[in-house]
């Protein structure tokens, strides 16, 4: 096997996953050790990945697995956000009494699944990765076993996700039937004309993927699952699966089916516009912050898809920039959410934020920055995310998409402003606890500071991403 070293981090994660499982089973009260070791594992695999960062266009296992700039970058994004998610949520888990050994192990296996998704160059491998990721997430969503909402969200996610996986598999089989291969490059070589069976297959797979990133009209699960799951899982949901699914989106649309762009472009444009508009409008009525973030993420995924709809390298790159900045903003917001704790109870309602700026000025400022950034107001990072997207969209003269997208940001600004209004303009309530652990503080501080100062020099991220050339 040549080039086996390219999947060192996958191998490393799987091995440590198993050893951690053994450790957890045989040693009493080992949840804390397992948790910290998992963070350490992620950290090591981050180092491994950074080492492999310059490898481009390597194939393994007869072309079924691909290592290139896209996969490297996306994997690093996944690991970094995984580390921050774990750092920020340990106290939440302890207080909610779900600090068990299964939790980090499930997280790790989900991340492993994402790795496989990101690198997959074959429909079967992709499906395997997707299922590994999803199965872990079903359990995580219902991890707060005694909580009715949590169980409900797990079940809901499972049923709908299984349905979408079924559709996705059906799409895979159609594509295999009409093109004679499951390998992305082979498919690309084999198809030379529009075949309706093939288009149908693409549509089915797009439905499955749209479900994973909760794009309209396959978003129904998101608000309930976001609200019901433990917050530590919600933040995971909000960030990681979307990174993985987005990179599969890129690979799936742009490698085998770039010649059929006329067939799928309209679908992506529709899904993108629907998500942007629906996410913005539906969030207005929300009072629960986690639900609000669910709608917000629907709308943000619409923007990321707008970049993909363009059909150029710039479009892809802008989507990747978008998801990177989206990750930071969500991290900042949810870290703030983890700080809304009073006497071991976490608060997640809009009214609980009332007058926060008087009691906790720093926390309020962080929320302010992340919310304005989510709304896309310059000079914060969120603006640049949108800027790159529209730069790509307008280059291809898709003015309708650009204008609808920008108008939807105005609608979306309304609900972000309402949260800010509650924080800054309303009268204060009781104080929250301030004894946060260091991991949470770090993740909040790092993400907020990057959002705030990103505008000073946006080039490094751009330079990194401009290496990702798919077409």
């Amino acid at each position, binding site marked *: 096997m040549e080039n086996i070293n390219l999947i060192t981090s996958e191998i490393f994660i799987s091995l440590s996953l198993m050893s951690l499982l053994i450790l957890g089973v045989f040693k009493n009260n080992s949840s804390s050790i397992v948790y910290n070791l998992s963070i350490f594992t992620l950290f090591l695999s981050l180092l491994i990945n950074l080492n492999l960062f310059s490898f481009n266009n390597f194939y393994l296992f007869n072309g079924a697995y691909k290592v290139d700039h896209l996969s490297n970058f996306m994997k690093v994004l996944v690991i970094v956000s995984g580390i921050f998610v774990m750092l920020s949520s340990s106290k939440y888990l302890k207080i909610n009494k779900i600090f068990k050994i299964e939790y980090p192990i499930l997280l790790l296996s989900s991340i492993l699944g994402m790795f496989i998704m990101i690198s997959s160059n074959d429909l079967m491998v992709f499906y395997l990765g997707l299922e590994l990721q999803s199965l872990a997430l079903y359990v995580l969503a219902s991890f707060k076993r005694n909580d009715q909402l949590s169980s409900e969200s797990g079940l809901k996610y499972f049923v709908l996700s299984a349905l979408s996986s079924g559709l996705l598999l059906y799409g895979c089989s159609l594509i295999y039937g009409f093109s004679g291969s499951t390998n992305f490059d082979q498919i690309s070589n084999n198809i030379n004309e529009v075949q309706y069976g093939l288009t149908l297959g693409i549509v089915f797979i797009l439905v499955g993927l749209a479900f994973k990133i909760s794009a309209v009209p396959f978003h129904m699960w998101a608000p309930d699952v976001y609200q019901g799951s433990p917050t530590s899982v919600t933040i995971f949901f909000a960030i990681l699966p979307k990174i993985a699914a987005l990179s599969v989106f890129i690979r799936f649309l742009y490698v085998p089916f770039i010649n059929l762009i006329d067939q799928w472009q309209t679908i992506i444009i529709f899904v993108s516009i629907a998500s942007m508009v629906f996410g913005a409008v539906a969030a207005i009525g929300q009072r629960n912050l986690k639900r609000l973030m669910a709608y917000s993420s629907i709308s943000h995924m619409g923007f990321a898809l707008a970049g993909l709809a363009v059909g150029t390298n710039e479009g892809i790159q802008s989507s990747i920039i978008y998801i990177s900045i989206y990750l930071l903003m969500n991290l900042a917001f949810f870290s703030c959410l983890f700080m809304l704790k009073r006497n071991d109870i976490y608060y997640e309602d809009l009214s609980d934020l009332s007058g926060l700026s008087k009691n906790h000025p720093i926390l309020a400022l962080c929320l302010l920055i992340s919310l304005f950034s989510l709304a896309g107001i310059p000079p914060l990072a969120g603006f640049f995310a949108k800027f790159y997207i*529209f730069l790509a969209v307008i280059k291809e003269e898709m003015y309708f998409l650009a204008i609808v997208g920008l108008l939807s940001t*105005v609608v979306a600004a309304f609900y972000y402003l309402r949260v800010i209004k509650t924080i*800054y303009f309303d009268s204060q309530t009781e104080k929250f606890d301030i004894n946060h652990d260091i991991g949470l503080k770090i993740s909040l501080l790092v993400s907020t500071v990057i959002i705030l100062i990103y505008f000073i020099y*946006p080039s490094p991220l751009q330079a990194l991403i401009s290496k990702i050339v798919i077409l």
Partner: protein
Amino acid sequence: MNFPILSSLILLPLIGSVFIFFNKSSEKNRAIKYVSIFITFSNFLLSLYLWYIFDKSISDFQFIEDREWISGLINYKVGIDGISILFVVLTAFITPLCVISVISTIKYRLKDFLIAILIMESLMIGVFCSLDLVVFYLFFEGGLIPMFLIIGIWGGERRVYSAFKFFLYTLLGSVLMLVAIISIYWIAGTTDVQELYKIGIDQKYQNLLWLAFFSSFAVKTPMWPVHTWLPDAHVEAPTAGSVLLAAILLKMAGYGFIRFSIGLFPVASEYFVPLVYVLSIIAIIYTSLVALMQDDMKKLIAYSSVAHMGFVTLGIFTMTQQGIEGSIIQMISHGLISAALFLCVGVIYDRRHTRQIKDYGGLVSVMPKYAILFMIFTLGAVGLPGTTGFVGEFLILLGAFKKSFIVAIFASIGVILSAAYMLWLYRRVVFGKIVNADLKNIVDLNKSEKIILWTLAIPSIFYGFYPEPIFNTIDVSINSLIQTYNANLDIYFAGKN
């Protein structure tokens, strides 16, 4: 000149705000007060120095700084010409006054207010200096955040409504401008204003692009019918917020019209002149009439702002030397006078906590010093000869007469109306007998109020009598602007025939 003086002007307040942010707040907040006054004042001195070393005899941009920012796409480029320098000085002049006013009137969360004002100053100076459309947009939009907070945190009863209205109106206008800016990038290959002036923008896109820019500037100016956010924002904003809003934020749009609408889209500007005329005339007459009917002093001055800005847009789109110069002087004069008027209202509001005109009357006998200053600014707003207001309105009307007699007639009616509502306001508030018994022991101006108001009164009279320094500065730039404009039109019409 290698010293990056413009960037220093932009960065200095920002550094000050960072310092204030990290300053441990003591009981009296003495340190942050001094720091903010010191920073804004030294920024003002720096801007005066800039005006002094500014070469008034060339029309090109000066003090240009050009750095790579978003690599391969956009450069951070700042520079000034005769048009922008005055706005930079105006901004740097108004901000210290705001800071003094804030320090003496705001009782809670002073630190946050000072940070917001300093950030505002950075952004506003940035708007007037930027020579790249994206950089401009960044500064232009960034101002929304601190202003939203200023209105929302320290505002009056309906502050939430007003803050939201302000934010969403301006954002809605601006997103279309963003589309236009990005389109320009792909059409012309750059967003560098200097480059764009040279190569011009393809005529077939100009109309749409002009409209997109117009949507943003019209909201910000504000022009009828999208002016409704302004009275709300003014009424609810704290005094310093109103001052910033009236004196500088509104000028961003007027500046934008001159710099971008006329400079970049000459053909479209010519095409849309009638539209601007009609909207300006409606703004002048309609909002003057509305101003006559107001019971709330701040609202009255807010509507008068809309009317005055109507003059400004009218003057700009006469495309004559007189008209545009008049508009710039009108903007500066409005910046000084409306700021002062809002401060005047603030003075009595702080004492009596009401802005209703009917609650006052007869102030002249208890607050003589206040009455004098208020008189000066009232006459300035009316446009009495000897104030800057007169110079501006006179030149605008001159330009308008040159282009269209009817438009000029209507605009002149606005002058009469402005005298009506301002003098009536003054009569009701200051003259007459003291009806309200509480007014008998109202205190006259204190020291800081006197300083602020006189500092505003002196230049508005001085430049009324002697506007030469201003003309000197803007003359060459405007001349070249109009020449390029006419040359572009000639090329266009020659190509058409």
